[in-house]
């Protein structure tokens, strides 16, 4: 099985930040079971900074590695900075992904953005 690089395998075998945040400030989900990947992201925000990220992912090796990498990239960033993370950046940080995985499994940034949008929405409602 030589389809994945070292970094992808590392994030797949030891994924960072797996779990849920009960009192999350934002939650986002992408994907569906037919295509094979579902990612749910939870974020905790303090002073406009993402202080904690957790995720749960149903999917292939790439999907799990992508989720893990996104969680690492987002932690500590401001909301605006985190919104600039793209699926492309994530794949690059992972040292590349197999071509056929670039679209279906590389949805981590989308899931993160959804969680941030959910957070922004909640903030508006508070005001």
């Amino acid at each position: 099985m030589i389809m994945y690089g070292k970094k992808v395998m590392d994030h797949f075998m030891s994924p960072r930040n797996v779990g849920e945040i009960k009192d999350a400030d934002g939650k986002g989900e992408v994907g569906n079971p037919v295509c094979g990947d579902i990612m749910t992201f939870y974020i905790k925000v303090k002073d406009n900074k993402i202080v904690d990220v957790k995720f749960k992912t149903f999917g292939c090796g790439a999907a799990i590695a992508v989720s893990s990498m996104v969680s690492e990239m987002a932690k500590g960033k401001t909301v605006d900075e985190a919104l600039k993370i793209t699926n492309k950046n994530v794949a690059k940080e992972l040292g590349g992904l197999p071509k056929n995985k670039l679209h279906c499994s590389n949805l981590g940034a989308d899931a993160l953005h959804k969680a941030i949008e959910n957070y922004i929405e909640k903030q508006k409602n508070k005001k």
Partner: protein
Amino acid sequence: MAKEKIFFDNASTTRIDPEVLKEMEPYLKQHYGNPSSLHDYSDKPKKAIEKARKQASDLIGADKEEIYFTSCGTESNNFALWGLARANKDRGNHIISSAIEHVSILNPLKEFKKEGWKVSILPVDEYGLVNPEDVKKEITKDTVLMSIMHANNEVGTIQKIKEISDIAREKNILFHSDGIAAAGIIPVDVAKLGVDSYSFSAQQMYGPKGAAALYIKKGIKIKPLLLGGIQEKGRRAGTENVPAIAGFGKACEIAGKEMDRNIKYISKMQQSLIKGIKSEIKNIKLNGHPTERPPGNVHISFEFIEGESILLMLNIEGIAAASGSSCASNALKSSHVLLAMGLAPTMAQGSILFSLGKYNTQKEVDRTLEVLPPIIDRLRKMSPLYKE
């Protein structure tokens, strides 16, 4: 870190039997002649092919003259469909097949449609069985050919071939069966099955890649797929792959001889693996037929998780298996077989096929049962679909 490797992917291919390799070697070395030549170099290769033809025919209860060697199972299936349909197109333009056939049947049938043929794809039930009543209903006056596989290459379901071929015979319709996942693994008798043509392949029965055969019943009209020389009585052009064919013959002979022993030996491991998974892991489903399946086929869906992830983790443990998940396929589509059986998308995604063979051991089953539950547990804990 080096873990003992366990090959539980015998449905994809098998390890070559040392006796088979021994049979092949002289034809890779000193007896390299072309069987069609008119000098001494052709003698031994020619004899090797005829010996293999006899061995292959004996395995499936055919006559030696009814065996035609090809390069692989896909070629045999393509040859049967195109050859039979083209040779009999004056009788009609309708073909009946099933939704769970191998792609080497389904993809040619798509081409048939483009060329103006009518194609009916029959559904299967939850166990993967074609209902013979459905076959009857689909027949029209234009039906010339039916193609229903013997044992399914994924879930293993063994079809009621005799019942379906009786229907075909009664209506004077040609009947092809893809026996690649059956021959050499379960007893096959083409006369009892009532087929007009039957595909089988060496690499599924501890033989080499690069050799397969199509049984064509005496008196059946068929056009060649490959045009060229007059090898195989003009029905399959191209210089014969002599070493592979010699190996195929030997593999057939051994498979016949070891059949009873292998079935007994492999079924025992199969039952142990199924029982172990059922008792150790919750929310699973054994796919395929409860009884009508080859020894060695263990096809399981693990709910809430995805197959490629399971394969990757098994692979790290040194265990080789397969999956019908879309992520595990190059085409990124879930197994058409599982979907045709009505499996929910998440269950199809979480499917794993362990296919056991004669070189596997109970010790390997035991080790798999040790490492599998923690893998499933770990992935489930990561899954948003799983609630403890």
